[in-house]
């Protein structure tokens, strides 16, 4: 007995052992602290869409310029101050350290004069500018390359338009560093072309303040941060104390305290009012008014652009900008809010026969008579309903509960801050409508995947407000009131109005599984939700939707490189195609692509080497979807040289229904080929090709799952070995498994 115990113990120990072994900111708020650039342009066309965060104002020491992507020097209108010698020395220090910088100006004065002044040999970093002879009254636009050297400039009187034909102005903004400017002298400055900026290291992008049709889209790619340093006149100050007042009609009237004029600054000539329905009003918000400051000016404005009470029911936010006589713009003012006009509707719903108790879960429906939008509120256990934040306006209020007649109030007026109390006493109504008539269910061949349902609303009183459609795959589930245990496929109708008696109702069921026969019936419901007897039971066959036919890559076709182009045949009435591909035949974690019906191919790049499976389905205009096509696979190899040696496949790998397996392989060059099947004991089972000379290309052979003596084989694992020997006697051996599973 001890031996038996020992035997069992060792057996278990061995068993356990072996088993184990197994930019942007608000442009208007930060703009150039100098004259010269027409800020309207910056605001509307440059800064905002380009998402530049700019910083202006006081001089920032060059030690802090590294915080910005770009340093731009500009200047104001004629007569404003130049850079001081100290400031320019900082520029030199900055550039000497290998940094980029941009000069930008729009007149012949100031900065260029500064450049001229300081373009001297002792200012070594800027000698490039000097050598290009930028002279006073000369060109004011300069181009710096990425070595901070002047590479081009604009002659006096030239415009950007004169440059564009040279090709670099528009097209090469991403390949060269350029700064393009425009001399304002003698041209219309208020529509002028202004400058560019330089973004980070390596690129300068050209900005056109007023982009036109010729402007390439990539102009609108810019830095996230820039600093604009200049000197000039002070900007106007935004108005304060903005006070919106809203009356019960929704009208908004704004008043404000006019802007103060800074010393040296221009007089305020206009106010611009921006509005948004979000608290963050920016220059991108809607400009709703421009108010000129003339003799009749009063700091008050009525927003007449809001017409609908729907708009009046919304909260709005306003911000102001002041513009001075130099066309300088202030920052936006603080935002002021005009509140929405909202009221409350509430009440209690009780039974006529028992007015002391409320009806729970009765539905109160509030319908906006202007927009026809609706909202519902269900009564609580005591029968109370409530609508908060109801926009002022005219409404229809209806209340309904199962087995009770609907009650309505057609003209409910909601006013601002009002609490309207409306109680209801519902009268019991247990009348049942007649069932729907002439019920039909058809699965038309010309509309595969769809079953068309139609019926007529019952005649007489009470009228039908709703219909319930039931669907099953088993007719018995609909018979003898069994359908009452089912969830309806769909419910149609609304409590607002009944279906006209005898009217035709149609419904397309796009959700059946194609290839199956479905049974349907329909019932009618009164406004008090009393369900009628059912209609006749009708059946219809869901005609299968034709599947797309895969064209390429063919099943088993190797793909060279990492780009796979899937192609398939077009299906008429297709709305879209669904392409799935995965690295497993079960399509676990498959990549899904929805492709427009106009396309019958899809290109996927960067496909990882390996075996990929793909299949397709089509979605028709009717939203019916086909089954997925047969799964194809392709072997993707990034190294074409190895495709021939590496591509060898057995279809199917798991033989269940087939009486044969197809062995497919590719030869890159003529080879002597052997192909044989072995069992797990290493024994040869079937020799399919015996040292046969084959040309390069795709070859396939069929194995009938028999051994050499044409005897059947046990289920299990088998190994198929492909041996290829080229003319240089290089032997490549590829092994693939196949599982008989019949």
């Amino acid at each position, binding site marked *: 007995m001890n031996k038996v115990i020992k035997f069992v113990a060792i057996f278990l120990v061995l068993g356990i052992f072996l088993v184990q072994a197994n930019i942007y900111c608000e442009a208007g708020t930060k703009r150039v602290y100098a004259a010269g650039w027409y800020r309207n342009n910056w605001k509307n066309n440059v800064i905002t869409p380009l998402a530049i965060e700019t910083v202006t104002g006081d001089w920032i020491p060059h030690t802090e310029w590294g915080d910005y992507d770009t340093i731009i020097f500009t200047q104001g209108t004629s007569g404003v101050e130049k850079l001081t010698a100290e400031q320019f020395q900082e520029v030199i220090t900055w550039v000497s350290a290998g940094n980029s910088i941009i000069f930008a100006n729009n007149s012949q004065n100031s900065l260029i004069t500064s450049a001229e002044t300081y373009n001297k040999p002792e200012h070594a970093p800027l000698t490039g500018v000097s050598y290009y002879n930028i002279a006073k009254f000369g060109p004011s636009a300069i181009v710096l390359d990425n070595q901070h050297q002047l590479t081009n400039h604009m002659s006096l009187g030239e415009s950007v338009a004169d440059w564009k034909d040279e090709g670099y102005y528009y097209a090469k903004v991403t390949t060269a560093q350029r700064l393009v400017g425009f001399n304002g002298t003698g041209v219309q400055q208020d529509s002028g072309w202004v400058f560019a900026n330089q973004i980070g290291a390596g690129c300068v992008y050209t900005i056109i303040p007023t982009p036109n049709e010729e402007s390439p889209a990539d102009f609108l790619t810019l830095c996230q941060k820039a600093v604009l340093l200049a000197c000039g006149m002070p900007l106007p100050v935004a108005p304060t104390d903005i006070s919106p007042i809203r009356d019960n009609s929704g009208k908004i009237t704004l008043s404000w305290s006019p802007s103060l004029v800074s010393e040296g600054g221009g007089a305020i000539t206009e106010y611009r009012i921006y509005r948004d329905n979000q608290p963050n009003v920016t220059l991108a918000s809607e400009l709703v008014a421009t108010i000129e400051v003339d003799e009749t000016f009063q700091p008050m404005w009525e927003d007449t652009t809001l017409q609908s009470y729907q708009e009046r029911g919304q909260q709005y936010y306003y911000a102001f900008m002041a513009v001075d006589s130099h066309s300088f713009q202030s920052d936006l003012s603080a935002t002021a809010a005009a509140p929405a006009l909202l009221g409350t509707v509430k009440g209690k719903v009780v039974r006529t026969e028992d007015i002391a108790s409320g009806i729970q879960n009765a539905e109160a429906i509030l319908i906006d008579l202007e927009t026809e939008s609706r909202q519902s509120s269900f009564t609580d256990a005591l029968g109370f309903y409530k609508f908060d934040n109801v926009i002022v306006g005219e409404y229809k209020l209806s209340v309904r509960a199962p087995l009770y007649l609907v009650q309505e109030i057609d003209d409910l007026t909601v006013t601002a801050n009002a609490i309207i109390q409306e109680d209801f006493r519902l009268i019991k109504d247990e009348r049942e409508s007649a069932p729907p008539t002439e019920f039909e269910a058809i699965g038309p061949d010309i509309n595969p995947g769809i079953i068309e349902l139609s019926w007529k609303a019952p005649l007489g009183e009470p009228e039908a407000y709703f219909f319930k459609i039931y669907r099953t795959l088993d007719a018995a589930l609909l018979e003898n009131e069994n359908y009452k245990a089912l969830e309806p496929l769909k419910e149609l109708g609304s409590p607002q109005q009944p279906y006209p008696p005898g009217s035709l109702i149609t419904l397309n069921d796009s959700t059946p599984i194609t290839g199956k026969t479905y049974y349907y019936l329909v019932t009618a419901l009164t406004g008090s939700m009393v369900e009628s007897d059912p209609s006749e039971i009708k059946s219809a066959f869901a005609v299968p939707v034709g599947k797309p036919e895969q064209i390429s890559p063919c099943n088993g076709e190797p793909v060279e490189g990492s780009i796979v182009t899937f192609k398939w045949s077009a299906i008429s009435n297709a709305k879209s195609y669904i392409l799935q591909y995965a690295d497993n035949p079960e399509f676990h974690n498959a990549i899904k692509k929805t492709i427009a019906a106009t396309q019958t191919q899809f290109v996927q790049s960067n496909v990882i080497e390996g075996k990929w499976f793909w299949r397709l389905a089509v979605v028709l205009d009717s939203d019916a979807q086909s089954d997925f096509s047969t799964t194809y696979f392709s072997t993707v190899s990034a190294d074409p040289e190895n495709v021939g040696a590496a591509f060898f496949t057995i279809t199917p790998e798991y033989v269940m229904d087939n009486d044969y397996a197809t062995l497919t392989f590719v030869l890159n060059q003529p080879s002597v080929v052997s192909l044989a099947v072995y*069992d797990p004991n290493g024994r040869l089972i079937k020799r399919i090709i015996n040292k046969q000379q084959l040309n390069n290309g795709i070859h396939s052979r069929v194995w009938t799952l028999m051994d050499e003596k044409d005897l059947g084989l046990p289920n*299990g*694992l088998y*190994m198929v070995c492909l041996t290829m020997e080229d003319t240089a006697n290089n032997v490549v051996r590829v092994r693939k498994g196949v599982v008989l599973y019949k």
Partner: protein
Amino acid sequence: MKPRFLLLLLFTIAFLQFADAAFEIEHLGTRAVGIGGIRAIADEHSRGLISNPIGALTVNKFTAGVTHQNLFSSWASLNGFNASFHNKMGAFSCGYLELSQEELSYREKLININYATKVRRLSLGLGLQVTKMIHRYGGGDGKSLNVAMQFDVNPRYKLGILATSAISKNNYETGNTDKKPTVISLGNSVDITEDTNFKLEIVNKTGLRLGVEKLLGKNFIIRGGVNEHSTPTFGFTLQKDKLCFEYSLLMNEGGYSSLLSIMTNL
């Protein structure tokens, strides 16, 4: 006729009516592979117990071993263990094997129970195997029966017969049942000299296996053979005290397959 022999005979006949083997009919042991795949009279121990239950009769009281097989240049592998003991009641053995192939996510597990007895010069063995196949699409299960008889004509000449039959059911939607042909091997073994043993086996009447074993010294046995597909085989056994180390090698166009078994006698 002894009662237990009669009982075993009846048991065999009854099982032959329905019993079959699983997915892979033949699982050759290390020694059998080394001598051309001969197993009907290989009377070996180790993994051979799986397919020829008579082998357990050669066991000295109690033997346990492990086996590792490298298939087709590491394309697949097979691991297992077995144990057997022998007393007056006969020889009992059991074993476990697991075949795995990673690319196909394939696993095949086999549990085997054998009984063998010897009455005078006639040995009779019966083996029952249960197999489980697991793979990407599910799997299947199967049973098989091995029936072996061996008659010792004289101490130097033996005749053997081994029949194996299988039935397998996959557990996929179809529920297909697959009966596979019975493999019958007829073999004989003759000791040419005291240290040289020659074996010949006919498989299903058409295949022929040849094998030779030679004892070199007291502890080393070398063997070679040719299987029914004319594939040469090679193997050796090294014995030392209670330990036994066996190795065999088979090479063909599919690659090399090697088997390694380590056993201990207790």
